């Protein structure tokens, strides 16, 4: 019963927001969620009479995940005040609805219910992108719905095989289908192309919500249906890590860099799920905290650059750190954490993932992935701190308090012992993270990464960048016009003459007759 009450409270807050669109409501919803995750006992279920099993289950994993998501709201929502100051927006409403939908996905115990909330998240994502760029939003929706179709197919197959509408063990042969269909949400390799477009074109807080929070539900969904411990996923994971990292190194647009880094980080998550270690969920939670806090803050920062300097191109943002000394240390902390430099929370997350997949002997690849992430994040710092740009950026540079606090949190979380959010169960100790070999490894990685940055700055890969961008544009146009073109060709058959209609009937009669005759008598 507690679950239903919680869901009703959040839903009513969201509906209240629909009318008033107040940031406070989102914060209240997040507070309620945090309180509920503390108060509700793990394992609470909601069973409808006459049903054989629970409709909603609040297990400890869902509880921890939701708690972290709700805490992320406390960073995101107050930071968006300044950005949306005086602008017309429905961001807070969508944020509250997203909280509700994520709660639904996390606690659903039926395929049917999970699918419902999953689709709700898709629609929220569409509405977040829609005000900024309608074309991208439409393509986002089409791509997500193809994913939903695949997911529905996978679920139906599972129900057909297991015979149960309740979440149950997925047959091994459907693992790949589940990974790909759920991967549409977090940009799995092959269908990742929507992610930089959508995250790059939405407003900054919306991007932060999409990139820092919403993509996590894709990974959580994979964990929830139990599609883990399957080696072929490693291929997807590493392709995402390296492709995302490579694109992030050569991009010029700050938001697109961050979006590609999201793809790269989600690849790390996929690699983690391929391993299926015992403490997988705890490691995943560390990963969510690391990526969530850093990515939300970085996207907000990019949004503030955009408002104050009027540009997202890192060439034009060059040396902005000199005009706004406040952001120097923050950008360093955030990017360092994202890159996994020692003494930050990101380093902890990366080391834990590395330890988790140790048995796969993919250490060389993991090392390379670390170098990539240091390279694309270090490049951002290089440009922000680079030679002083001649132009002084116009506009007020607002720098809200929550972002500063967030920077402190990231340092505190990394340096203090593992108390706090939930990390009591982790076996990995600080000794495992901060030992001499790993520190040497980190220093070497930073050296190699700086070489990479130097190469990119000295010999920019603009040609490749443009080539890839045009390729994507072509694909986008193709998706958009495909339906129209086929429809147009068919339209020509509709002449409007009765003779043609009757002819069509007779021809189809003949066709059916010939077909049946050939099937039966020949």
């Amino acid at each position: 019963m507690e679950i239903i009450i919680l869901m009703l409270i959040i839903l009513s807050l969201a509906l209240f927001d629909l009318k008033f669109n107040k940031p406070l409501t989102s914060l209240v919803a997040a507070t309620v969620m945090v309180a509920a995750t503390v108060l509700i006992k793990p394992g609470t279920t909601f069973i409808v009479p006459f049903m054989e099993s629970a409709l909603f289950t609040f297990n400890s994993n869902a509880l921890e995940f939701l708690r972290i998501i709700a805490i992320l709201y406390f960073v995101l929502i107050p930071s968006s005040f300044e950005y949306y100051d005086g602008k017309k927006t429905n961001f807070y409403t969508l944020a509250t609805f997203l909280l509700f939908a994520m709660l639904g996905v996390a606690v659903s115990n039926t395929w049917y219910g999970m699918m419902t909330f999953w689709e709700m998240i898709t629609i929220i994502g569409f509405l977040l992108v829609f005000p900024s760029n309608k074309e991208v939003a439409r393509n986002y929706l089409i791509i997500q719905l193809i994913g939903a179709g695949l997911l529905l197919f996978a679920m139906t197959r599972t129900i057909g095989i297991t015979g149960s509408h309740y979440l149950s063990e997925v047959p091994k042969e459907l693992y790949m289908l589940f990974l790909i269909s759920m991967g549409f949400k977090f940009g799995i390799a092959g269908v990742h192309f929507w992610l930089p477009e959508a995250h790059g074109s939405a407003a900054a807080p919306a991007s932060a919500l999409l990139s820092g929070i919403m993509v996590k539900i894709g990974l959580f969904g994979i964990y929830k249906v139990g599609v883990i411990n399957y080696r072929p996923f490693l291929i997807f994971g590493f392709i995402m890590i390296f492709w995302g990292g490579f694109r992030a190194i050569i991009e010029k647009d700050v938001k697109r860099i961050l979006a590609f880094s999201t793809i790269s980080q989600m690849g790390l998550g996929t690699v983690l799920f391929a391993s299926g270690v015992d403490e997988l969920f705890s490691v995943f939670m560390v990963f969510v905290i690391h990526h969530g806090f850093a990515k939300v803050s970085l996207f907000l920062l990019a949004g503030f650059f955009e408002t104050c300097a009027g540009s997202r191109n890192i060439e034009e943002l060059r040396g902005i750190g000199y005009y706004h000394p406040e952001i120097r240390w923050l950008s360093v902390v955030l990017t360092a954490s994202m890159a996994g430099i020692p003494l930050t929370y990101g380093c902890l997350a990366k080391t834990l993932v590395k330890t988790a997949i140790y048995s796969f002997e993919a250490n060389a690849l993991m090392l390379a992935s670390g170098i990539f992430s240091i390279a694309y994040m270090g490049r951002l710092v290089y440009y922000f701190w680079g030679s002083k740009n001649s132009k002084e950026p116009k506009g007020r540079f607002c720098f809200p308090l929550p972002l500063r606090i967030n920077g402190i949190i990231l340092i505190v979380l990394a340096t203090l012992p593992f108390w706090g959010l939930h990390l009591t169960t982790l076996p990995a100790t600080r000794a495992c993270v901060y030992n001499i070999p790993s520190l040497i490894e980190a220093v070497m990685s930073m050296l190699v990464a700086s070489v990479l940055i130097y190469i990119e700055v000295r010999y920019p890969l603009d040609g490749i960048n443009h080539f890839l961008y045009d390729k994507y544009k072509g694909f986008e146009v193709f998706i958009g016009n495909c339906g129209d073109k086929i429809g147009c060709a068919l339209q020509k058959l509709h002449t409007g003459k009765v003779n043609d209609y009757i002819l069509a009937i007779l021809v189809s009669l003949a066709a059916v007759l010939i077909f049946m005759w050939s099937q039966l008598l020949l």
Partner: protein
Amino acid sequence: MLITILLPLITALIIGLLIKLNKNQWLTISLAAILANIIILLYSFVTESLPVLYRMGQWDSALGITLEFTHWGIVFLISFNILVAIALLYARSYENLMRPKFFLFVMMLLFSASSWVVTQDMFNMYVFLEISSVLAYALVAYKDSKFCIEAALKYVFTGTTGGVLILSAILIVYFNTGHLNINLAMAEFANAEITTQLIFWALMIVGSLTKAGAVPMHFWLPDIYMSAATPVNVLSSGIIIKLNIITLYKIFSAAQLNDALLNTLNTVLLTIGVISILWGHLTAIRQKDLRRMLAYSSVAQIGYIVIGLFYSPLALTGAFLHIIAHSFLKGLLFFSVGLMGGRSISDVRGIAYKSKLPAIAYTIGAIGLIGIPPFSAFSSKWLIVRGLLQSQMLLPALVLPLGTVLSIIYYLKVLSSIWAREETVTTVKKDKFAHAAIILTIFMVAVTSALAPMLQNIFLGGL
């Protein structure tokens, strides 16, 4: 229970006799008769042990006409009655429809549709089929404009062609077996020559699907929907088209087929269904006119029903549920489009802020017909997919979600236009009867969605 068939006929007679009354009185008489009908049907559904057989004139079933009230038949009768009541209520807002002729036609249509569902006699079925078709032609031509006459003429030509094909099929059975009762005739027809059976099935399938508007026999359908009055559209999409599918199902379920013939027929119907879904949705994407878009959407929905009808009990249940779900959801869409003054997508920009109810109704209908979970259309599509997967038909099972994606594209275009924050110049019709009809339809959509599991059990248990 026979009275439920006769009551519409009696009402039609009464209205024909009492021409002097005014429109409110005609409406009251019709609605009272329909209400009585629904109550009797519900009562007998609960109390009597179904299926009930009536032998007309106490003749043996080999000689006389047999009427059979099955579980699914009564569910269809109830939904037809409700749909007619809602359509009449909505038609009250059209001044030019409020003549005794209209009520007479509609009640006769209800009578022939009800008889069609319950009859077990093939020739009787054909007679009611033609009565309904003639009434449909008349209703389409009712508005008396140039377009309506043209559309009605096209309808007459194609409908008659389809009718002739069905009649030839029935004659083939009759000359080969000497029976007209479906069960007896089809049992004996299994011994006929394979060529004869083949011709019979080809004629039957093409004839019925011509009248149902499946691709490639659908060309007449968009013209009808473009020109006829809204209540007539609702009746033709909700009742007349669906009845042809029911004919096909009845004959198919009574037939005793060998495996080769069964596989061939399944392949033919599956192909027609898949083509209908794809063609209907893809053509609907191209449309600028709201009603034409709905017409092509109907073509696609017929595809879903045809696919589901012949595979497994599960898919059949889904198809039956889809017939009911589609009736009300499409009705809702037609009603709201009827109230919005504009005809094309650009005409209705920002109309939601002028009049809320039609916009909300359209949104509900579109979301429901796309197949978003809480609505009954989702349950039906889901059942069809599961039924197809049970019989290892993977490709058609993939076409269904694809169709859903395609339908989202065009419904979203309309929805984003309706809810765009713009000033609109289009006037919105406001009428309390029309609004009442819309609210009733929304209520029925909610009821069918809530009762979807129960309907599923009825269809599964009664089949």
